[in-house]
């Protein structure tokens, strides 16, 4: 009995130090007015940090943008990811090269590729296409609203990188399905479209659930890429940048903690829902 707990101790210690302690501390801060700007230390303020967001227009804007961003990128990544996976699932000449091309966006270090995108979309002044991109940015912002160009940039980058990952994930999913299942469908159904919906999609359901969830979490937690692609000028705030602003720029640790913690129950709910829909638990085996 004692030995069992001793054996578990390293894992428990690790979880406590890297997960339970920081999250617990953040939860505590979210109930205080801790800030580097006041000298008296933290005072307990109850749920005030949470409640203030209900009437905060900036929060609601950030929330709407975040949800829109997450939904849009997830949809785009799923469609592209499935297309990549289906393309790569069957052998053809040069498949290795295509696989490399598909996988590269994900394999390449984000910090480097994000700069590449930034310079492409907001080129440095001396480059030949800088005036053209400048015009494009202005006209997009003018037509859709300020921040549209930034939104587009962040969305493009997220989809570019994420569809690569989802493509490879779903390819692994397709490869895990016995090929006879697809052949069997071929014997009964000629239309590739129907086979896709009746056989391929249901067989890939657990992988799709995982893909959607990972896509949503990266979209919700996307702070670094938004920050880098907009050079810190967050003309449209998402929850991540909003929390960063509150904590680092405004020094409101309590409010920032409350804001980021609010994502946890939301994402947890999404996770449960996704797995209920996409990957229902099977009834007991025979």
């Amino acid at each position, binding site marked *: 009995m004692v030995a069992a707990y001793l054996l578990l101790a390293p894992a428990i210690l690790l979880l406590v130090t890297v997960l339970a302690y920081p999250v617990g501390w953040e939860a505590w801060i979210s109930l205080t007015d801790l800030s580097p700007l006041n000298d008296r230390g933290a005072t307990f303020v109850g749920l005030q940090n949470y409640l203030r967001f209900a009437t905060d227009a900036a929060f609601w804007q950030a929330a709407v943008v975040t949800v829109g961003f997450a939904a849009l990128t997830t949809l785009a990544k799923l469609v592209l990811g499935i297309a990549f996976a289906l393309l790569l699932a069957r052998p053809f000449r040069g498949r290795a090269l295509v696989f490399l091309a598909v996988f590269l966006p994900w394999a390449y270090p984000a910090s480097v590729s994000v700069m590449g995108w930034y310079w492409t979309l907001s080129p440095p002044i001396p480059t030949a296409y800088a005036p053209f991109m400048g015009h494009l940015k202005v006209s997009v912002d003018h037509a859709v609203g300020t921040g549209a160009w930034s939104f587009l940039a962040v969305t493009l980058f997220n989809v570019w990188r994420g569809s690569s990952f989802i493509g490879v994930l779903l390819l692994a999913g397709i490869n895990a399905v016995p090929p006879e299942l697809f052949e069997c469908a071929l014997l009964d159904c000629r239309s590739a479209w129907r086979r896709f919906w009746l056989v391929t999609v249901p*067989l890939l359901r657990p992988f799709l659930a995982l893909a959607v969830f990972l896509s949503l979490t990266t979209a919700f937690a996307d702070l670094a890429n938004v920050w880098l692609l907009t050079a810190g000028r967050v003309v449209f705030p998402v929850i991540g940048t909003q929390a960063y602003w509150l904590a680092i720029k405004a020094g409101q640790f309590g409010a920032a903690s409350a804001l980021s913690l609010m994502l946890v129950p939301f994402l947890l709910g999404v996770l449960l829902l996704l797995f209920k829909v996409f990957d229902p638990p099977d009834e007991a085996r025979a």
Partner: protein
Amino acid sequence: MAQVLMKDLNKKYDEVHAVKDVNLHIRDKEFVVLVGPSGCGKSTTLRMVAGLEEITAGEIAIGDRVVNDLPPKDRDIAMVFQNYALYPHMTVYDNMAFGLKMRKFAKAEIQKRVGEAAEILGIHDLLKRKPRQLSGGQRQRVAVGRAIVRHPQVFLFDEPLSNLDAKLRVQMRVELKRLHERLETTAIYVTHDQVEAMTLGDRVVVMKDGWIQQVGEPLELYTKPTNRFVAGFIGSPAMNFVDVAIQGSDGSLSAQGTGIRLAIPPANAARLGPYKGQRVTLGIRPEDLHIAAGADQAPYVFDAVVDVVEPLGSEILLDVKAGPNSLVARVEPTVRLKVHDGVRLAVNPERLHFFDSTNEKAI
């Protein structure tokens, strides 16, 4: 119901010539088994009939239609796969109904057909379950049921029993045979198991390296194999082969091997005459060897030493050594012999096989 015709059928992959000039006429209502070691082209041939593999050259006709360019769905075949290939997300009923739904059958008709098939296979109680909740044997029944409901012109079976344990395999084999007698649908069945081939097939096609070696009724393959490969592949334990030289004058030929010398029966003498002075391969089935008794003529008897004794209950398999040659003899369970005992064995002279040493064809 239909016949299946394969004419000069060939399949080439980049490097591999998997099926070579296969010509086969499968008659209406016939149960034909393709058998051979792995890589012999049997599955590829079946998959070409199904339309899952493209035909490199040649022609396949089902009924009176050439199907080379027909998609699988329009060939009017139903296939049973080795790993069952049941859709895990559908119930047994939906699995069985899938092909009919895709062909836009009326709901009542689908219900009727699935009901009938479930009745035949005894899986009525399982219709609402998912494949995961079934045992291997039940899954196999469902896979067969899914083929039956289609009322196809031809059933294609790709090693359907290979994933079952030995006991269940024997049981399902009998059921498949019974089913074929009841449905009378043309069937092509692929297996690497020669016992399955012999018990199920009206005719058996033995393949090796992409070539058809022999086509015939099971007993014909057993008694008159056309070459050494078929002789060794059909029958268990496998036929014994001994390298011998043909000697003597016409009328009294003998086969002389190291440590074994047998007279050649008059029935074989004429065909073996031209081989005088040459080496050939002598084939003796284990069941055509017995412990020599007084009635056995001396020219058909040889001495050997027991190497291994395998008592199987109903019989004993004796692994013996005659000179450098290892042979297996199937003897009565009452025989009492130990390892290293000397034993005098007699052959059944009417059942000796001879094969040309160079082209391995039966002489």
